[in-house]
């Protein structure tokens, strides 16, 4: 069932004006700078904050409708929510935290705890059952919070900055967990973040919220290829390549990238490269860049000040250069071209 959101609310600094739909099983990421209204939007969908004027509905269930005055209180919405900070109830153990939802919905303490224990096992954190939130690491706490949100089969999953409080290695783990868990849930998931990697790895669709309005919405690729605002270009217009890392080489299919200095352990990893860091050449270049490969221009997106060139083989890469720069090389769509990037410009994080 679809989560239909329509919100019009005055946030002081600007107006929040959002119309969104999230389908079953879809992960919609709302990304934007701080103060754009992301958290207000999420809280409005949850029912914790007013939506001003508008409507929020899940399938046939009307959660909020300011024209009819209908309002379903938060506790009746069957939400799975992971708040931004201090998600866990500090005075309860991990087990009781996870059992809190089922218990609130009528299960006996015993049954709720059993259910919670099973859930913790599914997530591989059953050993934390008796711990108190205070003693958990950031990553562990977030796993518990996610387990708690998913138990009891919520209608909708709402996540507020799921990885922002975590260190790099923990981020990777939680992202992976979220990906599998939300896919298994097959319900709408609304994720709010300001982290580009979160957006690109988790979002089936990404909605960019700037000053209360959605400036662009689409898949990560679409946004990277044709960003409509400077913010999108700056934030999302990065290349993301998944592969397996060994030492300082990331391998993705037949493509190999030598990466810059890092502390990521060997294994699944993500490499990010800024489009502007990549150079294009007509023929194979000499010189220092360690990464050189041959590719073909798939599309060219020209705007007044910059050009974004999309290469597809052997991996999908977007290159940004000036109009003049592209003209100087003298290539067009469909032409073969050489690309190069310094190893130091390739940033790798855990996958």
């Amino acid at each position, binding site marked *: 069932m679809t989560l239909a959101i329509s919100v019009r609310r005055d946030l002081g600094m600007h107006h929040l004006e959002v119309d969104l739909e999230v389908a079953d099983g879809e992960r919609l990421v709302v990304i934007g700078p701080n103060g754009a209204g992301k958290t207000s939007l999420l809280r409005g969908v949850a029912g*914790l904050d007013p939506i001003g004027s508008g409507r929020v509905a899940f399938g046939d269930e009307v959660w909020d409708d300011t024209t009819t005055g209908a309002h379903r*209180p*938060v*506790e009746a919405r069957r939400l799975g*929510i992971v708040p931004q900070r201090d998600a866990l*109830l500090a005075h309860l153990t991990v087990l009781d935290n996870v059992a*809190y939802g089922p218990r*609130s919905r009528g299960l006996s303490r015993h049954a709720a705890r059993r259910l919670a224990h099973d859930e913790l096992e599914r997530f591989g954190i059953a050993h934390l059952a008796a711990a108190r939130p205070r003693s958990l690491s950031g990553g562990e706490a977030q796993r518990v919070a996610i387990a708690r949100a998913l138990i009891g089969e919520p209608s909708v999953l709402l996540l507020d900055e799921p990885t922002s409080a975590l260190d790099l290695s923990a981020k990777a783990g939680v992202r992976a967990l979220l990906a599998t868990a939300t896919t298994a849930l097959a319900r709408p998931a609304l994720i709010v973040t300001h982290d580009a990697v979160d957006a690109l790895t988790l979002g089936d669709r990404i909605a960019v919220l700037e000053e209360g309005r959605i400036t662009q919405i689409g898949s990560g690729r679409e946004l990277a290829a044709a960003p409509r605002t400077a913010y999108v270009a700056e934030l999302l217009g990065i290349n993301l390549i998944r592969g397996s890392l060994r030492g300082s080489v990331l391998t993705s299919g037949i493509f190999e990238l030598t990466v810059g200095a890092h502390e990521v352990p060997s294994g699944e990893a993500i490499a990010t490269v800024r489009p502007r860091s990549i150079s294009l050449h007509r023929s194979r270049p000499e010189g220092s860049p360690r990464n050189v490969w041959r590719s073909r221009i798939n599309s060219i997106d020209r705007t007044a000040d910059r050009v974004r060139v999309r290469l597809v083989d052997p991996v999908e890469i977007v290159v940004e250069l000036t109009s003049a720069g592209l003209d100087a090389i003298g290539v067009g769509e469909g032409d073969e071209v050489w690309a190069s990037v310094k190893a130091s410009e390739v940033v790798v994080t855990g996958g």
Partner: protein
Amino acid sequence: MSRRRNVLPRVLLVPAGIAVALFSLPIVALIARAPWAELGSILTTGDTRRAVGLSLITSLVTTGIALVLGVPLALMLARTRLPGRRVILAVCTLSMVLPPVVAGVALLSVLGRRAPIGRLLDDWFGVSIPFTGAAVVIAQLFVAMPFLVITLESALGAADRGPEETARALGARPWRVLATVTLPSVRSALVAGTVLTWARAIGEFGATITFAGNLPGVTRTLPTETYLTLQNDPDRALMLAVIQVAVCLGVLVALRRRWTPAITGGRP
């Protein structure tokens, strides 16, 4: 642990020392001069037992009622935008700092037999509140309940709402949120406020004697008993005073480090 340099001027020890002496010497003198040899006989006197029993029962009833009435009030003040919120808080504070006899007079002027509400009670139900145990409880409530309300309201106002919202989002209905998240989050203020309320109630004298009067077994609480005994049998009065000191001390010691910071508002 590193030794911190004493940054305060030494001479402050003098007034501080005088303050300590002011607090402690009377108690020490009391304990020293009390007729310990007669402790047994004094404790078992009918009058003593009646007064102690009455004080304990009324103060506990008062504390119970204060919880039933005061917690909801604190919640309403801290969590809703009640109109006149500031006025209510001011009135609470007022009854807390009012001279007790004045409080007693105020109670008489509304619940006395010829007073507006007292008259109704007398006419319709033949019930008159002054001179009854209920009057003792009401007098104690008037002066003591504000301690609970104000302590709790302050803690509730300062508490983080995040956990409550999380609880609601997990499906907890208002009563469950209250019982499992809100009140536990202000547990120490709740305990501290309750203890302060009880201590104030059991020590209440001026409002009690003015509103409830004095009758052994009915309204003659331990403070009243002590005051009257002082006139004829000072030694016995000393002992009764020591008993009250012991009770208060016992409660403070039992609560110790966990809760007294909430009362004293500072570090343990």
